[in-house]
């Protein structure tokens, strides 16, 4: 059986990748994908703990996260499309109308 720590390291790695991508990338879609990566990194640790402690709550949480992520993806992608239509760019640094 694979020890718990392996899952956690992988989960931490995925989360760190997501954070790094979120911070570094300028393309909105890439940023969006980085967020998904972070969510899934967390999901992985949830199921790992759930399996380890034999508690179903962790798995139920994962379902919640996936539902919210799906809804978020739907809304987010709609926003991205509308941003692209009005601004003709996907570079977040250029979507700065609200900045001083």
């Amino acid at each position: 059986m694979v020890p718990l720590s392996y899952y956690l390291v992988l989960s931490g790695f995925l989360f760190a990748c997501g954070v790094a991508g979120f911070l570094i990338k300028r393309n909105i879609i890439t940023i969006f994908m980085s967020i998904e990566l972070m969510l899934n990194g967390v999901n992985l640790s949830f199921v790992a703990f759930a399996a380890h402690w034999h508690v179903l709550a962790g798995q139920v949480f994962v379902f919640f996260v996936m539902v919210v992520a799906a809804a978020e993806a739907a809304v987010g992608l709609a926003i991205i499309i509308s941003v692209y239509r009005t601004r003709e760019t996907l570079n977040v640094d250029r979507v700065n109308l609200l900045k001083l």
Partner: protein
Amino acid sequence: MTTNLNLWVIPILPLAGAAINGFLGKKSSRSAVTTVGLVFSGAAFAWALLVALRFSSLDLPYQEYVAHWIRSGSFSADFALYLDQLSLVMLLVVTGVGFLIHIYSVGYMWDDPSYYRFFAYLNLFMFFMLTLVLANNYLLMFIGWEGVGLASYLLIGFWFTKDSAASAGKKAFIVNRIGDFGFLIALFLIIQHFGSLNFSQVFAQVQPMAPENASAGLLTAIGILLMVGACGKSAQIPLYVWLPDAMEGPTPVSALIHAATMVTAGVYMVSRSHVIFERAPTALTVVAVIGTLTAFFAATIGIAQTDIKKVLAYSTVSQLGYMFMACGVGAFSAGIFHLMTHAFFKGLLFLAAGSVIHAVGGEQDMRKMGGLRTKIPWTFWTMTAATLAISGIPGLAGFFSKDEILWRAYQASWIYWFVGVVTAFITSFYMFRLWFLTFFGEYRGAADTGPGHGSPSAHDSSHDAHSGHASGIHESPRVMLVPLVILAVLSVVGGYVGVPGSLGGNNHFDHFLGPVFRSTLPSNSENTQMGEKGASERTTEGTEPKTEASTELMFTGISVLAAALGFGLAWWLYYRNPGLPAKIATSLGGAYQAVLHKYYVDEFYAKIFVKPLVQGSTTILWEGIDRKVIDDTVNNAADDARHVSDEVRHMQSGNLRSYAGWIAAGSAVVIAYMIWMGVR
């Protein structure tokens, strides 16, 4: 309390008049303002007369509960009124003289642009004064007390665009405040020790107390503090300085507030508290000494004044001194008697002086008058009556009341009597000086046909706003003369209500007030001379032994002689030898200058109290505490906050990824910390 007098109507009527004129007067016509002002004050007088008619059928003291005011634990002070012989006398004086002066003001103030404001203030004054005299507890009395101060301030500064009037108003208000402070502390002491401010309750608790002869105690403290309050309101040494300056107000105001009624509030208050004073001989002595000193001191200043109203102002201070002298020797009813006659003749003197000022177009300097006898005969004759009355010429009001005071003063100590007689002489002298300077000799004003406006005098018409009277010296309109005549009649006959026994009368006035002032000290106590003596005499006045009567008659003769001497001297100096006073003045040099400058008391106060206060406030309170401590604390706090924000605001870049970076870094730190803690 079987009958209901609806006493509350009396003060409410002038208040309604004040409200109507104050709020609506600006848009109404002069005649409407006049109607409102006169009807409401006249109705108050009429109501007071009705009360007086039903007075004999009342259970005294009559008390009337009007409304709930303050109730806290066992302490209570309500809007409740109190009527006894003393308040009835005050009530009639205030409403009666007040109404006459309202009538006079119609003529005097007719040309003033703020006509409606004048009547609103005058009615407001009446309201507060009536509250003061009708209150059944010290707190309500204090409301009236402060209210008349307010009205006085408003009326002294009536022509507030003139700097001197505005500062005179402030001076009156501030000096009064010093006195009120004493009064207030006296009230606190009364609450603390008697748990009530109600007259009947306080006096009922005071009555069983023994007189504080040997050592000064609570009652002495209360008495002296009450006297401090009275000093402020009634212009006694050392707080008299505001009254002469108060002459900046319109002349009817000087007559009503600063001669006839408000300034006598202190005498009323001391008389009302006689139960306390009788048990505090030290406080009574203080009252008598202050009164005597003031009477003499102010009279001497009056000699050298040249402004007709200033002479009368110092004369008022001096006469108030007489009243306090009377109270101080335990002759409260004599004090009130003088208060009443003084209200008549001093009110008349001021109104007549106003009529003179009116006639000569705003001039107040007596050196620029003269020879007005034939030109304004009505004013001349009424003023003559008042002058004779105040000087103590036998047969007129002032004679009886002043004589009564001097006789009672002699029974207490010959010093009071002596100073009183000397003061009577000085009074007679300066009043006849005024009389001769104003009405006799030749007119000394500028251009005999057009006084006032063409004159180079510094006063010009600004003193008493009389523009449009450029047509030479003229008698005042009838609306001003009628009150003069009525007051003149009162000044002549007003004294006959209190003819003393030695002169064949039986002193009705004294008997009338007797129940109020009947000494409440236990008669077997050995230390009751003052109050008790007064009381026993009061009851035996009519039948006193022959020797007593002849002694009293002798003293009467002496004071008449003093008055006659004053007249003679004034006649000799200002009628026979008009050049002589100036020579005497120059030969006296420094002494004359000192009197002319009112003994430099104002300068002294300015140096000792006002200047240090102003400078201390400027350097310590304003620049030191307010600017350096309070302002700087606030300003520095704001500055520091701004500096910190300047640095910190860089964090708010608006760049979403930098925020994410901060969050990530933060959580990394937290995680690292937790791991480190876990490892340890």
